[in-house]
Structure formats: C-alpha cells, structure tokens
C-alpha cells in the first residue's frame, strides 16, 4: 500500500521530467535509489510499478532499476566507519551507542534512460 503511493509520486515526477526535457525517444529505464533504511521494499515497489506503468503516457515500456545504498555507522568512540545493511543502535565494531548514521535513507528518483533511436 505504502509503496503504491511512492510509485505514484515517482511516476508523476518522471512524467513531468520527460515532458520538461522534451524527450523524443522511448523511456527504457527509471533508476531509483532506495536506501536500506528508507523503509520501502524494492519488491513491493517493482510490483506497484508493474501495476501503474501501463497506464502512463511515457513509461509504458520502461523497467525499474533499484539501487540499494547501505547506511554508514560513524562511531564517535572508536572512529570506525561501518557499512550497515539495517537498523543499528550501536557501533558494530566496538559496541558504543555514540554513533551517527549517515545515508541509507534515500528514496530517490535518480535518473531516466531514453532510447533515442526509436525517435
């Protein structure tokens, strides 16, 4: 349910961008960045896209590519920078709770690929 709303917004932004760029070809691919801590499921996003894309003007033939950037735990005790795939409350290296989590929350439409030859 949640992912359906996200995809609706992504599709809306993508359609606007395609029209703004006055693209002549076919849109082949949308690239999303969905961070490991974003709370959105890539599988559910794909399913939602399959439902919505056929009813759009420009994205009927497009596929979804989802990149999943990890988060980094930066420890203020031991200085370790550790890549974390999920939610952590302490430094994976030394166990200190004094950490800052950077990144991993992205939920972004990164780019749109267009096949110009079909123009």
């Amino acid at each position, binding site marked *: *349910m*949640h992912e359906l*709303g*996200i995809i609706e*917004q*992504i599709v809306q*932004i*993508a359609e606007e*961008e*395609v029209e703004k*760029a006055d*693209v002549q*070809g076919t849109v082949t691919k949308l690239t999303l960045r969905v961070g490991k801590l974003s*709370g959105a499921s890539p599988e559910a996003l794909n399913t939602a896209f399959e439902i919505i894309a056929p009813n759009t003007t420009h994205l009927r033939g497009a596929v979804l590519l989802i990149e999943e950037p990890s988060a980094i735990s930066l420890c203020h005790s031991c200085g370790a920078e550790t890549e974390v795939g999920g*939610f952590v*409350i302490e430094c994976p290296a030394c166990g200190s*709770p004094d950490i800052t989590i950077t990144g991993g929350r*992205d*939920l*972004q*439409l*990164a*780019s*749109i*690929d*267009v096949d*110009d030859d079909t123009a």
Partner: protein
Amino acid sequence: MQVVVAKEILKVNDTIAKENMEVFDRNGVYGINVLGSPGSGKTTLLEKLFVELDGKIRPGVIEGDLETSRDAERIDKLGVPVVQINTGGGCHLEANMVQQAITSLDLSALNTVFVENVGNLVCTSGYMLGERLRFVVLSTTEGDDKVSKYPPMFQRTQAMVINKVDLLEFTDFSVERAIEDARKLNPDIEVFTISARTGEGIPELAKWIVGKVQAWQGEAS
C-alpha cells in the same frame, strides 16, 4: 540518453508538511501527530484528554482511517471540532491529506490540532504532517517487544504513552523493559504510563501537553 533527476520522493511530502506548519503557525495552532497501532487506544485517549483539557486548550482533531467516520463521530460528541480523512487503503497519512483537511477546520477558534494517524507502527513514522510534537501510544496487550521491533517509530517521537496499564497483570508486558528499549533508541524520550479506560495517568499527560503548547506559544510571541 539519460535524464538525471535526483529528486527525493519524501521531500515532496516534507515540503507540504512545512507549508502545513506555516499555516498552523499563522493561526497560532500547535500541531500534534498521534501515532500507534490499531487498537492501542488512541481515540479513547483523546476522548479522555479532551475532558481533562477542557478550558485549558482549544483543540481540534483530524482523524485518519482507511474507512468510516466512527472515530470522528466519537470526537464530535465531545463538541471538539473534527475532520475525518479516509485514506481508502492508504496505510499512513500524508501531508497533502492533512493540507486538505485543515481547510475544513476553523483554525482561528483553535490553538491545538491533534492529528490521529492511521493505526500503524511502520510507515506513519516516515511522514511529517506539519506537527511540532509527536507521541506514540503503545498498549500493554501489544507486548513490550514492539519497541525494539519497530525502532524508527520510537526513535522519531518525543513521547511514548504506555496505555492499558490496568491490564498489566494479564499480560507479560514489562514497563521497565519497554522504557529501557525506548531509551536505547531515543535517550530523551518522555514516558507516560496510563489507562485511558480508568483515567490513570491522564492528568500527567495532559499537563505535559499543555506545557508544550504554552512553551511554544511563549516562543512564538
């Protein structure tokens, strides 16, 4: 050819949330986002709070549910202005829904708006609505493990309201464990233990809310 877009999807929501906050600010209204599972007792708590807060604040309510206006009808009976949003399947409120709902409230007659979110411990936490305060209602019958199992919810809130403490003896819920787990995620989190059914703890929570509203009014003026 590639068109680089680099647009954050939730920024769209955050932008509207900021606009909502500006509308609240212009009208001297303090927004509160009330979160928690279905059945945790959010509406019952609001009913009890409004009785306790009678004459102390001027509340309004935005109710979010998938279907029905049952919650809004309950609030309406107390004479508190209320608008119902039906998300029709959507699992959380978004800022644009609240933006729409605000237009149905006479903000000039209010100084606090409680937004009761859709019952959900997951995605509701990721969507700002224009609020200055959030609290999550966790009931003892849900189990104290919910704090660790749904960390973003307890991390992104100012208070945890443990409800249904009158049922503690029938559950394995440990108040101490819930508080310990919540403070690991969010060291500054305020905790209230209440029973919306018996009224236990309601005066303390009401006092905290009034304090927050007054402190904000003090800063704003």
